[in-house]
């Protein structure tokens, strides 16, 4: 019964629209262009955002636990007399041993999260020396087998392999840029000096490219053992990088590790909070612009339905006299808006798909690498565009349709007689 009624109202709406083809087509085109460009713009914005976030996520381990504390531990003198009335000054400061104590336990705790891999490392400062040139270097000692699974260094190496650290005694991997500065290349020997352990000779067994993977030009990789002896900190670990199977769990994992061990555990979100807030602003701008496009499209629907109501005042009176209710008439004209929107959305999906194919085929050369635009083709965007158009169409059609329902048949009949 209700179905047959809506079918009847729909058939009247279709008849009305088919008699005003041009206006209907303009309104349909408006919706189609709105939906199409919504899809293209949001695919670009979300695609580039995902690409960017992926880079942020993969640049470094998802969680990094370092031997720093958010706030320094209170000195024993303070702990012994909490709230003491006398202020003690000049007591001997206890020297904290650097490094993560019981780091094996932290590694075990980190790896208890499903799919997580933890890579312990030691970083310290050394000076690289070649001939008369000196350059500071943040050296990171790693276990190549584990580190390769946690970070993306392997991918950004332009020469050599991470494994070379194991096969070559005293091997080091540094950035291309630094190597250029020092005037050295693969296989060359450099001197490394640290404050605690004097000078050693290291052999360059790998180079990583510049501007990639968030590695700074001033860092270098050696074997963990090498770093410990180089910086005079045997058996010490001061940094654990954790890679998670779900990067978005990083904040929770970091918080629980920090609560348990007291050391600072930083998630990738915390590290890149400023970038993430930038992305939020970008999204706000995007949705504002595309909503404006969809809003303009709904003006077209308003015009079509509004003109239709004006033209069909006589028909409205006839239908009312036959026994159609006010709601029926409103339904007819809202249906007109919905028909325009549905056709427009379908056409817009096609337009959007074509635009995505075109955008996807564009190629750009960035630093010698051919790249495509990152596009997000998820059905979610199609659903949002379709739904938003339908809702705005219903509102745009509802306003004039209300007028149709309020037409007084007697006024029309009296005027015509």
């Amino acid at each position, binding site marked *: 019964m209700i179905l047959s*009624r809506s079918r*009847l109202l729909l058939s009247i709406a279709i008849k009305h629209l088919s008699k005003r083809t041009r206006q209907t087509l303009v309104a349909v085109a408006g919706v189609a262009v709105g939906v199409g460009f919504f899809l293209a713009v949001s695919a670009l914005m979300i695609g580039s955002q995902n690409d960017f976030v992926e880079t942020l996520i993969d640049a470094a381990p998802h969680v990094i636990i370092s031997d720093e504390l958010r706030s320094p531990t209170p000195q024993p003198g303070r702990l012994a007399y909490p709230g003491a009335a006398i202020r003690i000054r000049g007591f001997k400061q206890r020297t904290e041993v650097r490094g993560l104590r019981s780091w094996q336990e932290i590694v075990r705790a980190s790896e208890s999260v499903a799919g997580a891999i933890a890579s312990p490392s030691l970083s310290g400062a050394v000076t690289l020396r070649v001939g008369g040139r000196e350059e500071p270097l943040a050296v990171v000692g790693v276990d190549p087998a584990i580190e390769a699974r946690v970070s993306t260094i392997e991918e950004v190496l332009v020469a050599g392999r991470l494994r070379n650290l194991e096969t070559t005694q005293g091997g080091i991997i540094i950035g291309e840029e630094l190597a250029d500065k020092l005037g050295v290349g693969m296989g060359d020997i450099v001197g490394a000096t640290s404050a605690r352990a004097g000078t050693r000779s290291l052999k360059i067994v790998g180079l990583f490219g510049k501007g990639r993977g968030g590695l700074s030009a001033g860092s270098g990789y050696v074997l963990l053992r090498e770093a410990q002896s180089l910086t005079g900190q045997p058996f010490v670990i001061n940094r654990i990088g954790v890679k998670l199977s779900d990067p978005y769990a990083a904040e929770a994992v970091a918080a629980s590790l920090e609560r348990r061990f007291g050391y600072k555990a930083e998630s990738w979100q915390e590290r890149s909070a400023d970038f993430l807030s930038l992305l939020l602003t970008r999204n706000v701008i995007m949705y504002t612009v595309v909503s404006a496009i969809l809003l303009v499209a709904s003006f077209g629907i308003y015009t079509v339905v509004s003109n239709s109501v004006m033209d069909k005042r006589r028909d409205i009176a*006839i239908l009312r006299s*036959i*026994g159609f209710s006010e709601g029926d008439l409103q339904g007819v004209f809202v249906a007109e808006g919905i028909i325009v929107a549905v056709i427009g959305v379908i056409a817009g999906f096609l337009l959007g798909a074509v635009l995505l194919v075109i955008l996807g085929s564009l190629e750009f050369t960035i630093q010698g690498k051919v790249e495509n635009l990152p596009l997000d083709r998820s059905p979610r965007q199609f659903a949002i565009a379709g739904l938003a158009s339908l809702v705005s169409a219903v509102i745009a059609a509802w306003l004039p349709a209300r007028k149709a329902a309020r037409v007084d048949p007697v006024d029309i009949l009296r005027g*015509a007689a």
Partner: protein
Amino acid sequence: MSAPPLMSARSLQRELPGDPPVQLVKGIDLDITAGKFVAVIGPSGCGKSSLLYLLGLLDRPSGGSLAFEGRDTLPMDGDARARLRLERFGFVFQFHFLLPEFTAIENVLLPIRRLGRLREADARRRALDVLDSMGLADQAHKTPDKMSGGQRQRVAIARALANDPSLVLGDEPTGNLDTANSARVVEIFRDLARNQGRAVVCVTHDNDVAAAADQRIHMRDGYIEGVD
């Protein structure tokens, strides 16, 4: 003595707001009975069309009472009145008032489909039967602009009869027709009352229509001057 009236109006009034308000219908008492063809006549502006719109529940009275089959129609909401028009009333106007985009049979199907009691095949058969009874079976698939004035008016009558109404209301139904077509419409209206037992109320200027009616209500300045 006789069957209770189908519709009865008591002190029925209708005025348009204004300064001073315009009185269209001034306290009319009227009973409409099944099987009777009633003509409402009078000069232009005497309120006869206004009376018809009140009787057809298209307009709401400003005062008095109006009962259909003993039920007071005043408290009914718009939907209930629309429902009553759909099920029990049929309107025929001076101009054919067909929907121009729809063919003859589609026009006749409008009230049948809206009522929704018949399945599609039965609804079409019903529509075709009614058109056939108007001698229009061969015109069923033409749009109004392809038909003559007389044919259009008969399609309009067919549409009014589609849901088998108890009350048929005509507003100058012959006003735009030539003599031959007028005579045909008058004949149909008489048949609707005498042989099909419907109540027919017809507002008219046409003396032939008035002459054919069982009863003539003379109106002047919003009230009933006389009945014969």
